[in-house]
């Protein structure tokens, strides 16, 4: 599992939990933040575009109304009776006409007043007499007027390189006698008023080969940047786009104004940075929320990880204690938990109790039988049955024990026996044998079962010799009120070894002729003529090999066996082997 993330090798479960939690939460926070931020920004931009579009409509309405006013003023002027008379009588009197026209021009505050003949010739131009008699320079106005119901035309156009709002009305005296054209120059004052109304930057642009600013509310450096930008990459009409002017970014909308499309246009601009600043507050709030969320996530992740890792660590410690044999109960806080950790703690506790129980049983078993038998029993699951083995059986007995036990108080007898058996048991164990059973004052030991030992005969002989020496030592210490003597019989034979008894109650032992023979040999040690306390059979001697000093004792008949058994008295080890 660790291979999946080779770079992040967390050695602890806690570390991994924290890592996974934080990665997920961080990813979630980041995605949420980005989505919300992007959505809000897009919304902001759409709002700005929408406001700009509205501003444009406001501008167009204001501009229409303004020029309609100019139109109406021009119409009133055209109906002036005095002018009609002047037209009728002084048409061939240029000075009179020109002065009168200047007068009427000033009545409405126009920049110029041109009288145009029906043949589209300039009759009189109030500003430039050189134009008199030449073809009228705005014939498109006349075309529109001729096609209109009311015979009027109006719009924005360029004249002499400047933008003007122009109106053309018929001079009806009383029928169409000429055209009256009034022009109103567009300058900064006009756009400033419009900019104030709509709350944005307004510029009037004219295009004759290249874009030029006719009027603007922008500052000088920005207007220079604007001209350069427009001539570099022309803006599409009626579509909001972003322009960088110096340090500020503007959302810009360009729309044509003129009669002749595209030559005069108005540019509405809103400062994008100023507009977006409103949404900065939201952005910072989002960042704040994300960071706070992240901090909370970190704390939560660590705490959750700890609450999961701690009980696991406690259980691990308990396991280690159990391994060392300490079955004492640990603190029960985890046991109370209703979750999986609680279940684990409960199961662990039961397991510990079970182990403790098993240990006690094994201990007990080891005390009742030797540890080797106990292990064998546990290993074989205490099934009934046996197998043929070649083993050496050793029987030992205390002589005249009944007589001695009559003479001594019971407690002393028990003490003596326990001391005797303890010592003898140690010796048997030390030589790798197992004490099969104690029968009163007798002791039956096995060598070569249940644990397989090829030198079981030699071990039995060595044990017997040491047992004799130990008893001598005990006697020297006056462990009993009287000197006690023992007799040992040892025989090697093939026997059946295994768990004998009933399923409810059984023990590990051996049966066969060999066992009887060993027991018989042991009782033969009572015979004075043999004068020995250890009688071994020929079979044992042969199995044990050289190194033992013996005295042949001839043959003996064993009860229940037809053939006699060759027996020997065991005297000790021969000098040749001589090791202890």
């Amino acid at each position, binding site marked *: 599992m660790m291979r999946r993330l080779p770079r992040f090798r967390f050695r602890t479960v806690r570390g991994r939990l924290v890592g996974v939690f934080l990665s997920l939460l961080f990813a979630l926070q980041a995605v949420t933040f980005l989505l919300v931020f992007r959505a809000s920004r897009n919304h902001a931009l759409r709002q700005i575009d929408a406001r700009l579009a509205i501003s444009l409509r406001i501008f167009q309405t204001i501009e229409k*109304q303004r020029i*309609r006013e100019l139109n109406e003023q021009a119409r009133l002027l055209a*109906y002036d*009776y005095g002018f*009609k*008379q002047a*037209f*009728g*009588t002084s048409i061939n009197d240029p000075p009179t006409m020109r002065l009168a026209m200047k007068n009427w021009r000033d009545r409405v505050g126009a920049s110029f007043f041109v009288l145009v003949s029906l043949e589209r010739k300039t009759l009189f131009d109030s500003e430039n007499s050189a134009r008199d008699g030449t073809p009228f320079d705005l014939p498109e106005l006349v075309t529109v007027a*001729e096609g209109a*119901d*009311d*015979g009027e035309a109006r719009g924005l156009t360029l004249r002499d390189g400047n933008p003007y709002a122009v109106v053309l009305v*018929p001079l*009806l*005296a*009383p*029928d*169409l*006698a000429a055209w009256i054209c009034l022009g109103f120059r567009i300058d900064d004052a006009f756009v400033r008023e419009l900019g104030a109304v709509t709350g944005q930057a307004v510029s009037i642009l004219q295009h004759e080969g290249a874009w030029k600013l006719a009027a603007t509310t922008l500052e000088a450096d920005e207007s220079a940047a604007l001209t350069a930008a427009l001539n570099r990459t022309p803006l599409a009409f009626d579509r909001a786009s972003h322009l960088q002017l110096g340090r500020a970014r503007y959302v810009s909308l360009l729309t044509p104004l003129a009669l002749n499309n595209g030559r005069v246009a108005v540019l509405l601009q809103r400062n994008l940075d100023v507009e977006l600043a409103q949404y900065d507050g939201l952005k910072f709030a989002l960042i704040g929320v994300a960071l706070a969320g992240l901090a909370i996530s970190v704390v939560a992740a660590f705490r959750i990880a700890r609450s999961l890792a701690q009980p696991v660590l406690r259980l691990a410690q308990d396991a280690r204690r159990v391994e060392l044999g300490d079955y004492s109960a640990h603190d029960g806080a985890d046991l109370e938990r209703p979750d999986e950790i609680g279940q684990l703690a409960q199961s662990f506790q039961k397991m510990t109790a079970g182990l403790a129980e098993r240990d006690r049983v094994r201990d007990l078993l080891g005390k009742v039988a030797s540890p080797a038998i106990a292990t064998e029993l546990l290993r074989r699951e205490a099934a009934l049955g046996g197998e043929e083995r070649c083993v050496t059986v050793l029987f030992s007995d205390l002589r005249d024990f009944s007589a001695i036990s009559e003479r001594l108080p019971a407690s002393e007898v028990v003490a003596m026996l326990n001391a005797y058996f303890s010592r003898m048991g140690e010796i048997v164990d030390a030589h790798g044998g197992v004490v099969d059973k104690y029968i009163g004052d007798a002791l039956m030991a096995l060598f070569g079962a249940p644990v397989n030992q090829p030198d079981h005969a030699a071990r039995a002989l060595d044990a017997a010799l040491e047992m004799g020496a130990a008893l001598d030592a005990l006697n020297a210490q006056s462990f009993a009120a009287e000197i006690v003597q023992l007799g040992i019989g040892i025989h090697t034979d093939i026997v059946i070894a295994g768990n004998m008894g009933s399923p409810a109650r059984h023990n590990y032992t051996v049966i066969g002729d060999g066992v009887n023979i060993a027991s018989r040999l042991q009782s033969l040690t009572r015979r004075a003529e043999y004068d020995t306390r250890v009688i071994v059979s020929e079979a044992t001697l042969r199995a044990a090999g050289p190194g033992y000093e013996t005295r042949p004792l001839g043959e003996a008949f064993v009860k229940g066996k037809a053939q006699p058994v060759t027996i020997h008295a065991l005297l000790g080890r021969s000098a040749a082997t001589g090791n202890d």
Partner: protein
Amino acid sequence: MVRALAVLPLLATAVCAGEIVAEVKDSRGAPVADAVVYATPLSGKAPQRPQPAVVAHQNQQFVPFVTAVQVGTLINLPNRDTVKHHAYSISPARKFDLPLYAGTPQAPLLFDKPGIVTIGCNIHDWMLAYVCVVETPFSALTGADGRAQLRGLAPGAYRVEVWQPRLKGQPSSYTQQASVGGAAAQVAFALELKPGFRPRRNPAAGDATYR
């Protein structure tokens, strides 16, 4: 008997008087009303028979809309309305200025120059009338059917011309010739007309609102 004989030349003239029937259509073939058709004899001079004419203010309109008269005609402009009118013209053929008046002016106006005289009222922008002053006494107006009849013409060749308030170009470009003889001479004109616009009279209440 002498009296009867005196009538003879008249009768002769009457019996011998010719007619020109003119049909005036526009470029799409529709009949044109208010067109002045006038015939000038090619040989000799036209007789001088100026008849006094009247262009009246009636129901805040000039009646008739178009009048054709011979040079030297006296025209009066009586005001038949209850409100005063201010009639004027700045046409070179006859400039005049009759400030607000009621009733009939004492002196009629003499129209002694050929040409078109456009008459208006200074305080009623929609009022408009035309007087077509021509050299010849033979003139007639077309009706809604676009037809005009010139009567009492001595036999001979005539130059027939036409004028209409919305005529595009000069009458001289529409000149035709006709021969007056026994039967009525037929003349047809196809005029090119300008689209005309006139100030509307008293638009319906509620049309003009604050904007």
